[in-house]
């Protein structure tokens, strides 16, 4: 997506693509959770992740804006900082960019200093150190709607005079007050006027200065956020709080199972109808078989899970956008302390329910390196959305639906919760192991700012879901498609006398049978073996693989997959398969990101081996236990 579209110069005279001119680098700086990324998205038209808790942005993001008759602006969105003395990895990035020590990025020509207008006197402390850099700066008081709505006010001109820099009042969330910002970016940049700034290292002195400035610019703080107080009285209530927390969790899982069902059935019907239509429309040929058994059964059986995964992302989005996530971290801190971690580790762990890759990045906000590595190592145990397809498939195939708590909880949702708990328990057990041995450290402090509650917006949530659907479908259209097609081809060679050998003797079958001795103790046959091998590309690929393999056998897809699973697996081996997927680190993207974030192969190698061993051992025990239990 090109950022240039956002500048809205449809009637600009320079319609022909001008040669790339020298561009200005503009850094977006500000305290955590004051709306920097929201503003960045508004200005560039890009869609970086935003949320309502401190530490959403942990990486620099770059977007380009074009201005007629002025140099382009290269906007750099940065992680939030309280000061220019970094204490964690994400803060270090901001600091390095501001000081021009990052390769490939020149020292900023200008700064957009974004402050939260509702707590100006506090946020002005950061202004002292940013203005002292001597870089042309526009001070943006964001969340203006909130300020005015709650009865606060500020004299912009007086404030600009005091700071020696232009000041703009804006609401990035509503897209209001952006014009002065665009003018600043496209205009002549002025060095901040020399005003007397306090010494940055003397924080109490800085605060005094900030208080004085906000007084002199007749800043009147807004009334306290009443609704946030009321909601906290409920969510942080000693009894009601945990009960609500539990209720929300149960509700989420039940909805993921039951409400997603009709939608998933709809997609499945679409896949099977279009498959039948193709079958009738095409003449019998190898290509038709490839299309139907390879692509339709393979990719189709994964695409079916799109509604369920979107529903999960909807819930996570509401958690993140509303501000409840920070409260959940506070409630979880005591438990996290017991395993040697802290509440801040809880936020990456929760986002690992979506995907481990952003979760590993999110650990950058954790100041202590050992705590950070421990969190990285346990994050892939959290049940990511790529595990949902295989979980749902096996549960639906082997567990009959019965009500446990009336309409609130059924057996299948309960089984799913059980698997989430299993992953959680493995993460915690591993944390205890790590924090009492190789990653032992002193108890660290826990500091977390509580954001004001906000209504998740329809726009924000739908953008999230749209982006997620794109990622999912892109994966289905690339990795999963190629693996399915490749598998179909490998299952058809070598040929004997013009027709392919039985699958068991094909190349794919040979691979599967080569793995079989290792997985036979877990109750898996060679077909599951092929699935385990292909799922190294991505976990959900196993569903596509089984779809293709069983599809080739029975010529059926979608509906038939559950049936085929029931024939292929005993209940004991089905449970073993679930346990295997709960523990194993079958995700190359996670391995890659862990390598990058820990700076070497050591930790990802240990992690992969450890999780693999645990998966094998756990599946073995599960298989034996269920066999014994059912005999």
């Amino acid at each position, binding site marked *: 997506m090109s950022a240039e579209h956002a500048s809205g110069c449809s009637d600009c005279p320079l319609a022909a693509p001008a040669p790339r001119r020298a561009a200005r680098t503009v850094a977006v700086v500000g305290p955590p959770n004051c709306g920097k990324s929201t503003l960045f998205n508004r200005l560039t038209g890009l869609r970086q992740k935003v949320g309502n808790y401190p530490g959403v942005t942990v990486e620099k993001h770059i977007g380009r804006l074009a201005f007629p008759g002025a140099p382009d602006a290269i906007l750099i969105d940065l992680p939030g900082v*309280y*000061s220019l*003395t970094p*204490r964690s990895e994400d803060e270090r990035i901001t600091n390095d960019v501001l000081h021009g020590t990052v390769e490939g990025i020149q020292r900023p020509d200008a700064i957009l200093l974004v402050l939260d207008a*509702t*707590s100006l*006197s*506090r946020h002005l*402390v950061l202004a002292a150190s940013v203005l002292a850099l001597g870089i042309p700066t526009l001070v943006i008081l964001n969340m203006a709607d909130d300020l005015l709505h709650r009865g606060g006010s500020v004299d912009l001109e007086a404030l600009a005079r005091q700071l020696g820099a232009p000041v703009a009042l804006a609401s990035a969330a509503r897209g209001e007050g952006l014009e002065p910002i665009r003018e600043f970016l496209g205009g002549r940049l002025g060095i901040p006027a020399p005003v007397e700034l306090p010494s940055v290292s003397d*924080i*109490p002195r800085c*605060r005094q200065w900030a208080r004085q400035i906000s007084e002199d610019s007749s800043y009147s*703080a*807004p009334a*306290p956020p009443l609704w946030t107080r009321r909601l*906290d009285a409920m969510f*942080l209530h*000693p*009894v009601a*709080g*945990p009960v609500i927390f539990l209720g929300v969790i149960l509700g989420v899982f039940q909805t993921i199972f039951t409400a997603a069902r009709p939608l998933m059935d709809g997609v499945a019907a679409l896949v099977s109808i279009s498959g039948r239509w193709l079958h009738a429309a095409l003449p019998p040929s190898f290509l038709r078989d490839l299309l139907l058994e390879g692509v339709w059964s393979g990719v189709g059986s994964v695409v079916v899970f799109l509604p369920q995964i979107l529903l999960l992302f909807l819930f996570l989005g509401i958690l993140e956008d509303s501000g409840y996530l*920070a409260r959940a*971290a*506070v*409630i979880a*801190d*005591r438990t996290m*302390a017991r395993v040697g971690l*802290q*509440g801040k580790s809880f936020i990456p762990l929760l986002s690992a329910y979506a995907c481990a890759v952003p979760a590993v990045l999110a650990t950058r906000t954790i100041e202590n390196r050992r705590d950070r590595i421990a969190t990285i190592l346990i994050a892939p145990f959290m049940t990511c959305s790529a595990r949902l397809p295989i979980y749902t498939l096996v549960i639906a195939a082997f567990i009959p639906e019965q009500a446990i708590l009336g309409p609130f909880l059924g057996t299948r949702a309960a089984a799913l919760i059980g698997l989430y708990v299993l992953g959680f328990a493995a993460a915690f057990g591993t944390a205890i192991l790590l924090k009492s041995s190789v990653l032992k450290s002193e*108890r660290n*402090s*826990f*500091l*977390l*700012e*509580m954001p004001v509650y906000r209504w998740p917006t329809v726009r924000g949530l739908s953008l999230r879901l749209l982006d997620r659907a794109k990622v999912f479908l892109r994966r289905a259209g690339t990795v999963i498609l190629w693996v399915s097609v490749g598998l179909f081809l490998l299952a058809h060679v070598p040929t004997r006398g013009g027709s392919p050998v039985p699958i068991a003797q094909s190349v794919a079958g040979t691979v599967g049978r080569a793995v079989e001795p290792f997985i036979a103790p877990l109750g898996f046959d060679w077909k599951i073996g092929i699935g385990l091998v292909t799922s190294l590309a991505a976990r959900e690929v196993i569903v596509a693989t089984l779809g293709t393999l069983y599809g080739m056998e029975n010529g059926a897809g979608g509906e038939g997959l559950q049936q085929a699973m029931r024939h292929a697996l005993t209940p004991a081996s089905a449970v073993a398969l679930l346990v295997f997927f709960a523990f194993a680190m079958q995700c190359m993207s996670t391995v890659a990101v862990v390598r990058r974030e820990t700076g070497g192969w050591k930790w990802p190698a240990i992690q992969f081996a450890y999780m693999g061993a645990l998966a094998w051992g756990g599946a073995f025990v599960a298989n034996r236990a269920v066999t014994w239990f059912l005999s």
Partner: protein
Amino acid sequence: MVQAVVSLFRKERKRVAAFSCGLQALTLGSEGIVDSLQIPPGAAQRLQELGFVPGARVFAAWSAPGGDPRVYRLDGMEVALRRETAEKILLRNEERSSVVG
């Protein structure tokens, strides 16, 4: 009986007031004024940036189930701190006052 309980309660309150002047000693729903931070300068920096500087008025707003960590309100924002950190933020003894809301 009731009186005995009340007096026990009073005694407890008095003991807290007399011996402990860290932030963790604030009862929920009351306010205190920061006197000093008994934390090495490096570690104290983030706390200061968040507003825990001498003279700051801090209100004990909420606590997680089990009483730790607690959420303190100062300067119009709320921040969660563990007990062990709160203990090292000392309050001015005389100016502690109970307020509602």
